[in-house]
């Protein structure tokens, strides 16, 4: 195991796992507490549309998927604000459009689309140096946005109270959506389009079970996200199974342990 750490692709996988674990579990607390879990699924499938367009155009899929997913994210917010439709309805519309576009883009390609499947199910060992730099960039932007945590948390608790206190809730929401969309795209390479929503939701949901305050929930969620990425990665090497799926199954085990512990504490 120790020798493996000397391999560059393993080092990249470990760093990518830690960064994506941190990002997804940090934004996940807002996603879970705003009841927007379906948004993660919607945006990851929007990323599929962007990846497919990138493959069709013959450019690095990430460069197309990022603006594509950001546009979809802004579109979801805009439709919700303009029409008064429920958030999950707006997500559902864009989810379907993005997947349909992705399928159409892939059908225009002449060659077999095996590389598209790597994005569907993730391929953490194939993370490139360029992927890592983009992920570092998103992590740095997230660190810079830490002062906004209190505003986002307040608006998460009650939008009207926050707006009555003159917070620019709509602008803050757009920024949160933007960072979330970029996080999802960079996470696609690590855990895949199909599983990224779980990466967002499970650590935050687990933290919610055991946390008395939103700040503790955020810290616990991030801890679960990072530690599950590290241990899940090593376990996947050890038992030779896909890394993204292993990380998520590990998160699921932690979730059920927390659930049983809390139930026992409440009933006892």
């Amino acid at each position, binding site marked *: 195991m120790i020798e493996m750490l000397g391999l560059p692709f393993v080092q990249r996988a470990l760093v990518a796992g830690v960064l994506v674990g941190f990002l997804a579990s940090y934004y996940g607390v807002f996603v879970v507490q705003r009841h927007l879990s379906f948004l993660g699924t919607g945006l990851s499938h929007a990323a599929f549309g962007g990846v497919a367009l990138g493959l069709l155009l013959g450019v690095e899929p990430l460069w197309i998927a990022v603006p594509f997913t950001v546009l979809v994210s802004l579109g979801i917010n805009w439709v919700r604000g303009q029409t008064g439709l429920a958030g999950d309805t707006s997500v559902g519309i864009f989810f379907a459009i993005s997947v349909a576009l992705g399928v159409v883009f892939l059908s225009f390609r002449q060659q077999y689309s095996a590389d598209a499947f790597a994005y569907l199910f993730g391929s953490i060992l194939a993370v490139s140096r360029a992927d890592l730099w983009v992920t570092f960039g998103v992590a740095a932007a997230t660190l810079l946005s830490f002062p906004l945590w209190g505003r986002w948390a307040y608006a*998460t608790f*009650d939008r*009207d*109270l926050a707006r009555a*206190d*003159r917070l620019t809730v709509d602008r803050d929401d757009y920024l949160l959506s933007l960072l979330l969309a970029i996080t999802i795209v960079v996470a696609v390479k690590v855990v895949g389009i199909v599983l990224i929503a779980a990466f967002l939701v499970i650590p935050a949901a687990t933290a919610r079970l055991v946390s008395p305050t*939103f700040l503790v929930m955020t810290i616990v969620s991030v801890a679960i996200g990072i530690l599950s990425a590290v241990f899940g990665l090593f376990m996947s090497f050890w038992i030779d199974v896909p890394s993204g799926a292993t990380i998520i199954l590990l998160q699921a085990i932690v979730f059920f342990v927390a659930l049983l512990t809390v139930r026992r504490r409440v009933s006892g």
Partner: protein
Amino acid sequence: MNTVIEVDDLSVRFNDYRAVCDVSFQVEARDFVTILGPNGAGKSTLLKVLLGLIQPTKGRVSVLGREPEDVPPEMVAYVPQVKTLDRTFPARTIELVYTGLRSKWPIRGKRELYRKAHEALERVGAGHLADRPLSRLSGGELQRVYLARGLVRRPKIILLDEPATGIDASGVVGLYDVLYSCQRQLELTILMVTHDWEVASHHATKVLLLNTHLIAYGKPDVALTDACLRKTFGHVGHAHSMLLGGGRND
């Protein structure tokens, strides 16, 4: 008298739906105004216009001499309906009161501000709830906490949206006692959306009857007439007999 709220020919439309239509009234400092009307009458919309959360489609609104969105938040407090609270949000009571001082969720918070938040809780008789999770508060306790949050910055005006909804009878009496006491101490102007006829007839200085249009506005004995109640609610019924029969004239 010192006018603190002026509403002149206010209308609010949401697409084809008329929420508030041609409403005009004035509120003087230290007034206690109850806003009564059936569901969908535009009562909560009116409060949100006064808070600057909803823009009027027509008309002019002035709060403390300014446009509502230009009024500093510490001057006007808002106590929302308890039923809007997300009880899954993990938080301690003191944190919610703290947001009234800093307009953001506290990370560590300043000792001085926590002291003020504790004082506000004590003022409404909820000091013992400071460390309790919000999810474990009863409706009455929660409404007191929201009131403490509203009062923590010592505002000039407080807007309450159906504060008695979801609270048992003893809780309601306790809440109103606290509210009257705070009004006297802090010289507050109160606007309260309510379905509580008892408060409107006995304790309010003015009553505003709203059913999209303004039906009546004035002292309780002027506004709560048979004709106005019928025009507002379509019937007079039990409320009328309680108000004009056994209640106010006692």
